């Protein structure tokens, strides 16, 4: 019988040591009583020290385009179409622009009048603003609409001048602007080329006769709306206006947190001033809150956007959101330039949301309830 050397047994014993450590139990609180390290949890509520409303023209990726006019607002939309090669000998019988209605202000709708003008200036949905309107279109209308858009209506059809369509078809592209007439009493919105459903997008249908009659159906390839209006000034109330838009920066300058504070929760609350709100059923009654990185106007360096949802507590309507990321950054590495508030539907509606600001009574001021852990 072969005898196993003692040295091999001993070495194997050593090899087993690492696995013996695996026999350890799970750590528990044994010994915690004499640990000097401990943290303190504190909660404090800080209220807004200032707020500043400012105008920031909307642009860009809008899924709803607006046209119309009310005593307070005016909205215009631009659309661009592209066309395949066209036989110049063909006859254009008619052209119809079809717009799917997805939004109305006021909610029940109302009279709408607008003209369609050919755009003469180059434009982009990312750069065209209300301030860009001057001399950007042909003053001669190439189509018009007049009617009442109610909640029962799902589509608006506008006849487009065939001579304009011929120029577009020959050029392979063309764009238009819809300008509301003074007789308008409402604003309606329609799905843009960015809406997911093809059936909701703006469509231009052109009847063309060559050897036979055919319908050329083209979806818009680009679009944008611009709007303007005057926000009423109500002391102590912040007006957040979509579509134009009016935003607000809220400051919390009195925030002072100890070094090493870990923000466990920072609940932001702002009380709604429902008396000045204006919204439709299609609106999203929610605020977007963003972390401001730059003090200077136009305050367009914003990050970490989140949402503040409406809640009703004790009969008071509030918007509430979580700002722990912001407060943590303020407590550690970033300067406190405040937060930016805007309506969630800023790019798709003309909704107006009123909230009480820093100049209101203490109980209505925007506030952050901060729960933090203080490490040693």
């Amino acid at each position, binding site marked *: 019988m072969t005898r196993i050397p003692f*040295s091999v047994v001993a070495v194997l014993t*050593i090899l087993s040591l690492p696995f013996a450590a695996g026999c350890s139990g799970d*750590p528990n609180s044994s010994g*915690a009583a*004499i*640990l000097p390290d401990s943290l*303190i949890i504190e909660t404090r509520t800080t209220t807004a020290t200032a707020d500043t409303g400012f105008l920031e023209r909307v642009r860009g990726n809008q899924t709803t385009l607006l046209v119309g006019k009310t005593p307070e607002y005016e909205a215009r939309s631009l659309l661009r179409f592209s066309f395949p090669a066209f036989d110049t000998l063909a006859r254009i019988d008619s052209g119809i622009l079809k717009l799917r209605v997805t939004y109305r202000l006021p909610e029940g709708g109302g009279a709408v009048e607008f003209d369609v003008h050919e755009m003469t200036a180059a434009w982009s949905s990312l750069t065209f603003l209300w301030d860009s309107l001057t001399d950007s279109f042909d003053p001669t209308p190439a189509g018009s609409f007049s009617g009442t858009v109610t909640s029962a209506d799902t589509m608006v059809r506008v006849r487009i001048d065939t001579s304009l369509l011929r120029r577009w078809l020959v050029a392979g592209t063309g764009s238009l602007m819809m300008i509301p007439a003074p007789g308008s009493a409402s604003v309606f919105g329609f799905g843009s080329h960015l809406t997911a459903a093809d059936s909701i997008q703006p469509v231009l249908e052109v009847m063309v006769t060559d050897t036979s009659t055919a319908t050329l159906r083209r979806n818009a390839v680009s679009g944008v709306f611009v709007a303007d209006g005057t926000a009423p000034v109500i002391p102590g109330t912040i007006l957040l206006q979509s579509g134009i838009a009016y935003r607000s920066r809220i400051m919390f300058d009195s925030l002072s947190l100890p*070094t090493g504070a870990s923000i466990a929760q920072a609940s932001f609350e702002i009380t709604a001033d429902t008396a000045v709100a204006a919204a439709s059923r299609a609106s999203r009654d929610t605020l977007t809150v963003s972390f401001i990185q730059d003090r200077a106007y136009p305050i367009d360096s914003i990050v970490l956007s989140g949402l503040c949802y409406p809640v009703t507590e004790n009969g008071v309507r509030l918007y509430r959101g979580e700002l722990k990321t912001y407060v943590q950054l303020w407590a*550690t590495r970033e300067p406190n330039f405040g937060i930016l508030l805007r309506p969630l539907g800023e790019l798709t509606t003309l909704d107006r949301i009123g909230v009480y600001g820093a100049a209101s009574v203490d109980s209505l001021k925007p506030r952050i309830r901060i729960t933090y852990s203080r490490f040693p």
Partner: protein
Amino acid sequence: MIIRHRATTGTRTLLLFAIGILLITARVEAGSGGSVYSRFGIGDLSRTTSPELYGLGGTGLAVSPIGSVNDMNPAAWAGIGKVRFSAGAVYEGFSTTDGSSSVYLAATRFDGLTFAIPISPDNGITFASGLIPYSRVNYNIVVPETRSGLDYTMTYRGNGGISRAFAGFSATITTGFHAAARFEYLFGTLSYSMTQAFGTSSYSGASLVRSENVSGFGSTVGVLLDGLGAVLGMAEDRSLALGLTFSPATYPTSETERVYRYGATPSPSPPDSISEGERSFRLPFSFGSGLSYNSPNLLLALDARYQEWGRTGFETPAGVRLRNSVRLSAGARISRSADPNLSSSRRVTYAFGLFHESGCLEVNNTPIRENGITAGISFPILNETRLSFAASFSLRGSTDNLLQEDKIFRISASMDIAELWFQRPVEE
């Protein structure tokens, strides 16, 4: 000069041992914890990395180990006749209780390497160097807590330690009187972390890691008087030795860094790091004296060590105080024979020991003391190359005054290689 190289027939054993060391060191990071007492001061102090000496209760100030390099008293290097190289590992298990809860936590780690090169054996001139642990922080505590109506879990973790790289020389001043000095470079990181975790995503936790990066220089001098037996008229094959060591106070620097990681901060945002700069602290002097009696088959040894922790100037939390420490130990080694011409089984040595340590900690007005017993075995695997093991069991602290009692199990192992290098061949 011809370097004599001898192919080892114990290659398999050496290979297995090397793999074992690698496995053990790989597991160091996965070690699950130790004792909360290592949270204070600079952690648990390491006494010796030699299982030969540890088996004697950590007694070695007047002992010349058979296979390893004495890392307690450098004057013992004077008796080394062949090149020695030692590498070891240690397993430590802590069964702790604070009276209301208990846990068993264990860890394994690399336990240093040393080598010694005899330059002039006749004159006791030996150069030795190595890397050995000085202290170790290792605790792991998980506490469910409720404060301000919030439920969360705190995890307290300590790891790291101070290592000691040393190099020095020994010399025989006169017959039976050896002296040595070694210079040490202390370095390492002591890391203390606390992590807060909430059970719900509505709240964000965070962690703080405080690191102390320690570096500095130290030294140890030692003497060994191993001719006392002759003075006292003992028989020729018996001897009595007295060993003394002294390590003067040194002032390493410590650079503190706090790193906060916040759960609310979006990844991969970097953590917040706060450097608190460099400061100096006093690592107190230590003094040790030991006595040993040697006969052909028996060694008896006795050590006393003192370290002046009461004057370190360390900042300690409320309820904790550092005080001067005293360690007393005694051990016996039994060997059948040291004659290298005999078979391996006849050259196995067995060691037993016990120790009492009145440690440097006083918590809640209660001194933390440790009492333990040890045992060891060392056997040759090839000529004078040895494998050594030591095991110990000790009790530290008590559950009085809200303290913690540790039952500490420790197993250490080392491979001690002894070979002839730099020897001139016999001219024919």
